[in-house]
């Protein structure tokens, strides 16, 4: 005792035994984490982020213009979305790196520049659509877009740069849940469920520009390029690894099914309420009418709340995510807490996208639904670039080891890519020469 005059507490067999017990008790508390991962993991969040202003506009007009006729496309689309999302989630878990990171490290500068340009344009388009969504939502409340859009843009910029966006994000998220009202509304509208069931399994195809335009928009809004980047980053950030990956895979598929189920009901609902009367959707208030079976005279308010929440959410996240991706790939300094001098390009991209979105949304007489559809088409046209990069990465054994795609899976994934590319190509050709396929 005398050579340790001052006690640093410790030692003793009794204590050790107590310790071993403690290990057991602590471990028993853990499963909560996995439970959380499975319920509200990156997959569910990402897939449902797809149902933003552009998504709602696209599917509302699909239902209104084409009735149930395009419902069949949701089946292959759900599969494709799940497959694409799963590949990115798997890459995140196996490599621990973001998509932009991997593209740069594996494909070098030129490919990176191409992919990042595609991402910048696609995300720029989507950002525009979010601000258009904000404008439309506020106009339903009677606020002119020249007031609402600049205020929203400045507020978003300020909240993100000051780092307090994260706390407000949840409010927007909850507001956007209003769109789940379409599900209830779909049932209340009493659609012909027999017809609906028949159309789901009955594909048909038109080679008209209008039809192709709609399909490319549907693909673009469902499998948006940003979603791939988004899900891989969230998986990496969550620290998901190969051992816990099965939870994430389940999460991805649950998210995909859930989000496309929502989409399905939006189409059914608008078809049952608007298409049957021969109405088209050109403005936000027309899209809101599909909620009448649920909310009656309050349909517009309900719709406006949902649209505003979803648009504000994405209008902050998208420019930020784009700036992160590009900075990550090209090696610029990044982070919202940095000052303009430390991270000029990062904050520059973010600011540019917010400003771009806001200024386009303020153009007078902007056709609401049309603009939203066009941005989704741009997404669809640029999607093949990202898909090809993803497929080449996920099949690289140096990177993925034994977690490369299986043969069946690979066929499905390549088929998705080829079909999406062919659709985009076809759409471009037909837009240039409209009469090409008509006798």
């Amino acid at each position, binding site marked *: *005792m005398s050579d340790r*005059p*001052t*006690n*640093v*507490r*410790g*030692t*003793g067999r009794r*204590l*050790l035994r*107590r*310790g*071993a*017990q*403690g*290990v*057991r*008790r*602590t*471990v028993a*508390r*853990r499963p909560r984490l996995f439970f959380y991962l499975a319920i509200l993991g990156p997959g569910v969040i990402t897939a449902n982020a797809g149902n933003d202003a552009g998504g709602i506009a696209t599917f509302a007009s699909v239902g209104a213009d084409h009735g149930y006729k395009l419902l069949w496309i949701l089946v292959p689309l759900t599969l494709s979305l799940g497959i694409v999302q799963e590949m990115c989630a798997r890459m995140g878990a196996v*490599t*621990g*790196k*973001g998509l932009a990171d991997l593209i*740069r*490290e594996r494909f*070098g*500068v*030129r490919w990176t*520049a191409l992919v990042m340009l595609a991402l910048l344009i696609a995300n720029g388009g989507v950002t525009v659509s979010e601000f258009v969504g904000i404008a439309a939502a506020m106009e339903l409340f009677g606020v002119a877009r020249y007031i609402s859009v600049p205020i929203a843009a400045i507020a978003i910029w300020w909240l*993100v740069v000051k*780092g*307090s*966006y*994260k*706390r407000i*994000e949840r409010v927007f998220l909850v507001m956007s849940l209003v769109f789940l009202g379409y599900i209830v509304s779909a049932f209340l509208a009493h659609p012909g469920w027999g017809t609906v069931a028949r159309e789901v399994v009955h594909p048909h195809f038109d080679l008209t520009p209008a039809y192709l335009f709609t399909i490319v928009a549907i693909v673009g809004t469902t499998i948006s390029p940003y979603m791939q980047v*988004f899900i891989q*980053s*969230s998986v*990496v*950030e969550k*620290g998901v*690894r190969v051992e816990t990956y099965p939870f994430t895979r389940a999460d991805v598929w649950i998210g995909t099914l859930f989000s496309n189920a929502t989409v399905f009901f939006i189409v059914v609902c608008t078809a049952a309420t608007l298409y049957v009367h021969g109405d088209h959707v050109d403005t936000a208030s027309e899209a809101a009418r599909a909620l009448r079976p649920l909310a009656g005279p309050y349909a517009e308010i309900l719709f406006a709340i949902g649209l505003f929440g979803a648009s504000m959410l994405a209008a902050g*996240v998208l420019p*930020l*995510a784009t700036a*992160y991706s590009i900075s990550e790939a*090209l*090696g610029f*300094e990044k*982070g*919202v*807490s940095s000052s303009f001098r430390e991270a000029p390009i990062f904050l520059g991209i973010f600011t540019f996208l917010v400003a771009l979105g806001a200024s386009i949304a303020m153009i007078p007489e902007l056709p609401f639904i049309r603009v939203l559809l066009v941005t989704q088409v741009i997404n669809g046209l640029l999607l093949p670039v990202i898909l090809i990069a993803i497929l080449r990465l996920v099949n690289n054994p*140096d*990177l993925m080891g034994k977690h490369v795609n299986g043969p069946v899976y690979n066929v499905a994934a390549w088929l998705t890519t080829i079909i999406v590319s062919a659709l985009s190509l076809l759409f471009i050709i037909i837009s240039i020469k409209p009469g090409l396929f008509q006798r």
Partner: protein
Amino acid sequence: MLYLSQVLGRPILDLEGERVATLKDVIVRLGEGDHPPVAGFVARYRRRDFFLPRWRISHFGENGVRLNADILDLRPFVRRDGEVLLARDVLDKQLIDVDGKRVVRVNDVQIIEAANEWHVTGADVSLAGLWRRLAPAKLRSHRPVEVIDWADVGYLATDAATVQLKSSRGKLARLHPVEIARLAEAFSYQQGAEIVESLDDETAAEMLEEMPAERQAQILGDMDEERAADILEHMSPDEAADVLGDLPEEKAEDLLLRMEDEEQADVAELLPYADDTAGGLMTNEFVTLPLDLSVSESLARLRKMAETPNMIYYLYVVAAEDSWKLVGVIALRSLILAEPSAPLRHVMRTDFQVAHPDDRAGDVAQKIAEYNLLALPVVDEAGDILGIVTVDDAIEILLPKDWRQRLPRLFG
């Protein structure tokens, strides 16, 4: 001076100036000085890669490589230990710039000739370097480049397992463990683990303590068990107990049993307490002094201690030499200012604040903030001191998560 991007894909010429192959990669050997020398080249001929040793080359420049003999050894290229391929392992990868304390991406590699040897001198991380590879030669700008001296490269994030920089160990250690932890966030979890493994036990322990709890557990869980136990011994007992609590049961027991007896007992003592209680927050490294000492005897004991705990601003007075019964608290300041001959019982405070091991963590943190304490003793029903909760643990609880992680990687 050459840039890697200017020589890749250039022809390899024989004695007559005929093109025999294409330059695919440049091989350097790490660990030989601050600026590793070029050891050879990977040449590509008809979809096959073969090795060209340095001594086969008579000229190396922007126009390509010239051989000094007509004999070519066409055996396929195999990477040897310690060799790095500049195009494959360095270009486009991230590295830690020890001087600038940041993570950067390599846009190009600078090679300089000195005394008939070529050496890698730096990594170009500027936009100009990027542009050099993107734009055709005509459009090249002559803007100044920003080059990281290779001597400041602390860690190279590459997949080539054999090249892990043993030489980087000393360089990374120039950074504070907190900085290393912050920089490691930019890398994948595998690379983060690699960085931890490359450090000495003590730095590794300090760096781990700065990382999120789950990440600590992941890294230590994947590591060689003996090494993990060594690192755990260097962590403070409360942090080590938290990590073990995050690991699967068998793994945690295994690591615990591999630790040295003394550290093992310290950690084991803390394990039973739930995370969100005073017991879970506390550490058992603190100093006790028996009541019958004088001020000067107490100071003498402190000086004589082989290893003082981090927290000695408060000294805990117990009833007797072998007792844990807490009777008073003395701030180091009062001890130093007090009359040397005064007995402790006259200098100590007896109206101190305590926590019970089952108290909620949030309440404990609140109490520390409220009474402006640096530490709060945790005392059981019998009045024995079990440990102390220090102010830094309290801060972690009181500050919102966003504040502690000022640099989120993506959203928000």
